[in-house]
């Protein structure tokens, strides 16, 4: 990956190797799938990943929490799905090729949020619950996931730095 930077027009650019782009597409599709499965009357979720994406606003008051969920969860899930689609759009559908992405501010905001959602899902799958947890690494699957988790963090950090940087004159 070539890190994010702001170009002269203020847009954010980065370059991903073919397998990196494919990984991001897959993780974004997973996010969409998890959130789409949540549709219908959302009362409480068994899936810890979904629970973290649509968290309780009143942990000590189940009634107020359910009420908040009733009014916000569908919209929240919809916006998150839109964000993950924006990431896939930004990368394009061409598998097997290196991808240069160019994001305007709106797309950058969508990427920032969906990269967070991806990391929240991976962390939930890895059992990362408190500071310092490294998560399960005993199996090939969990080891791979843990590498992906760290790499997506790296991508996000790079995007944040570019967003904080002033446009080049």
């Amino acid at each position, binding site marked *: 990956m070539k890190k994010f930077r702001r170009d002269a027009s203020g847009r954010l650019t980065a370059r991903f190797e073919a397998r990196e782009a494919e990984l991001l597409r897959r993780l974004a599709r997973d996010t969409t799938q998890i959130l789409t499965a949540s549709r219908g009357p959302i009362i409480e979720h068994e899936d810890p990943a979904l629970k*973290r*994406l*649509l*968290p*309780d*606003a*009143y*942990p*000590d008051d189940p009634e107020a929490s359910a009420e*908040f969920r009733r009014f*916000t969860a569908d*919209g*929240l899930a919809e*916006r*998150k799905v839109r964000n993950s689609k924006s990431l896939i759009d930004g990368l394009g559908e061409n598998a097997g090729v290196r991808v240069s992405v160019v994001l305007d501010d709106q797309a950058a905001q969508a990427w*920032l*949020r969906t990269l*967070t*959602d991806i*990391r*929240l899902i991976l*962390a939930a799958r890895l059992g*990362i*619950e*408190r*500071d*310092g*947890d490294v998560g399960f690494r005993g199996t090939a699957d969990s080891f791979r996931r843990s590498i992906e988790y760290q790499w997506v*963090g790296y991508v*996000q*950090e790079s995007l*944040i*730095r570019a*967003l*904080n940087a002033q446009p080049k004159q």
Partner: protein
Amino acid sequence: MNALSTPETIESLDIHEITDPLTPWNTIVWNDPVNLMSYVTYVFQSYFGFTEGEAERRMLLVHNEGRAVVATGSREEMERHAEAMHDFGLWATVSKANE
């Protein structure tokens, strides 16, 4: 006759169902092991309009103390902030300011 000696009118109000308009509410952001410190600072700065120093101070409160109050006001407004934080993937809750 003292008006205070006729409490009947009060009985029709279920005090658990009403919100004291004088008691403000807080939006609280909680620590989690996933979100990057730079990201939390960025969210506080860009969404709440805090200066970089103030955003960093509240981010460190979240990181070190486990939570930080990020806004205070009406319940409706605090719920809107909590929803916005959930959009960003931060865990935010709403509670009465004096709790």
